[in-house]
């Protein structure tokens, strides 16, 4: 039975999640040097093109097709076969299944784009396109199936992931760390000046991410209902709390509160509340947000100690924030589920298992995919191209002109 309200809300939510990918492009684009701004924006926008096609051809079917042993969806929805205007019996049964399909597509798009934060200013564009395509097929689709599909083994185990803490953020965050390690540092890192060229752009991007995230989390209730209301509220509160705690940590640590700190913190909070949004109370959301701001701030500081070049902190914010959020869900859950604070130790353990599984799987597969691409076409641009900038050398364009 199709509900007009649910359909309307999920269509709007899909559009909101779509807007997050351009938002991410601006968020990242402002943090690189001006000679690489277009390339950095492009890494997000190309995901809109490539992953949309991948999802239609095979992705939706691998993720939500007929379950095969809990591990992968069958090919019964290849080219959206059977995905039409009637509701699915298994997913969001009050909306046309096409609506569920496109809502899920927006998640599949932004997830590989998140990884781009770790590889900017040095990765060959063609290698990146191959990477996100293979990564979507070999990492995103299976993990999405494990957690969210009917019959998926992590879902059956009882893992809670409301809107993609594991599927989206841990997956992307861990993969980002592996990419940073395999690709190596940018030329001159860390001694040369890698100062963000336009933080106004970054602030605009962060604003769009916050706005879009209401669709991401409240939309994941898959209906215009009470859980959507809860997820909407917890999402907003966690973003605010994390922005505040990150900038306070920074203020105490370096003596000045920074704009970049405030917007990085709000993103960390949104990441952390993602798995928890429909399961925790508004007060739980405050604790998750406050924790996310401080934990992610410490994790980006540690990057300096370890010396890897996760250029825009895709791991530090999405990986670490995602892990904190997934575990915190097992602590604070109290709506439609129970966590550690409600005496459910089992849930907490299941959350830790789901986190560990996705770290190992995404990390290993990312490594393999990168090594294959490296052997066939190489991963990095030439040193000279890196110095000149990728906008001009990869795309024949420049972001800013005098005339």
């Amino acid at each position: 039975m199709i509900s007009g309200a649910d359909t309307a809300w999920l269509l709007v939510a899909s559009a909101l999640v779509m807007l997050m990918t351009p938002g991410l492009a601006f968020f990242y684009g402002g943090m690189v040097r001006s000679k690489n701004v277009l390339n950095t924006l492009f890494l997000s926008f190309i995901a809109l093109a490539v992953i949309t096609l991948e999802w239609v051809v095979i992705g939706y079917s691998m993720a939500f097709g007929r379950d095969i042993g809990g591990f992968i969806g069958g090919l019964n929805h290849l080219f959206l076969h059977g995905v039409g205007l009637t509701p699915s019996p298994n997913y969001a049964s009050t909306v046309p299944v096409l609506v569920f399909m496109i809502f899920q597509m927006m998640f599949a798009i932004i997830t590989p784009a998140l990884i781009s934060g770790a590889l900017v200013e040095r990765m060959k564009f063609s290698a990146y396109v191959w990477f996100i395509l293979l990564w979507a097929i070999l990492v995103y689709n299976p993990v999405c199936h494990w957690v969210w599909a009917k019959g998926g083994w992590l879902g059956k185990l009882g893992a809670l992931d409301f809107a993609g803490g594991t599927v989206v953020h841990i997956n992307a965050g861990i993969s980002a760390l592996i990419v940073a390690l395999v690709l190596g540092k940018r030329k001159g890192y860390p001694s040369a000046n890698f100062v963000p060229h336009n933080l106004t752009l970054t602030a605009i991007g962060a604003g769009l991410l916050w706005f879009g995230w209401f669709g991401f989390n409240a939309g994941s209730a898959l209906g215009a209902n009470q859980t959507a209301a809860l997820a909407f509220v917890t999402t907003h509160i966690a973003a605010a709390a994390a922005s505040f705690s990150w900038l306070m940590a920074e203020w105490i640590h370096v003596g000045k509160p920074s704009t970049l700190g405030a917007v990085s913190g709000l993103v960390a909070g949104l990441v952390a509340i993602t798995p928890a949004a429909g399961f925790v109370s508004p007060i739980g959301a405050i604790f998750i947000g406050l924790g996310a701001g401080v934990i992610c701030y410490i994790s980006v500081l540690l990057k300096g100690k370890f010396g890897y070049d996760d250029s825009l902190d895709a791991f530090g914010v999405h990986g670490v924030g995602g892990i904190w959020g997934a575990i915190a869900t097992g602590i604070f859950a109290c709506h439609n589920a129970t966590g550690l604070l409600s005496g459910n130790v089992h849930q907490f353990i299941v959350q830790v298992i789901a986190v560990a599984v996705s770290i190992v799987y995404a990390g290993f597969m990312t490594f393999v995919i990168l090594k294959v691409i490296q052997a066939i076409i190489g991963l990095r641009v030439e040193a000279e191209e890196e110095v000149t900038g990728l906008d001009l050398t990869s795309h024949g364009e420049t972001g800013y002109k005098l005339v």
Partner: protein
Amino acid sequence: MKKIEAVIKPFKLDDVKEALVSIGVHGMTITEVRGFGRQKGHTEVYRGAEYTVDFLPKVKIEMVVPEDLASKVAETICNAAKTGKIGDGKIFILPVEEVMRIRTGETGKDAL
């Protein structure tokens, strides 16, 4: 004719321009430039990583004036741009061989 080039602190630009106009300078060209002298640079912190920015933003003013006005112009800029703190900038005075106004083709003092 002399060319005066002054590198000053950006926030002093309006004061300098007004002082110059009031002594009869009718035109000037400014550029946003970066550089350092004794002031050296400053540090910026992004997500806890500290970067040293060696080249600080300054404004360079350029104008060509008749010989007899040159020292007065320099003195005026000096007074208007001074804060007394390190990093106030410098003034250079250079000889100019010839000037031509593009619209009319006038040369020399008439072109100023």
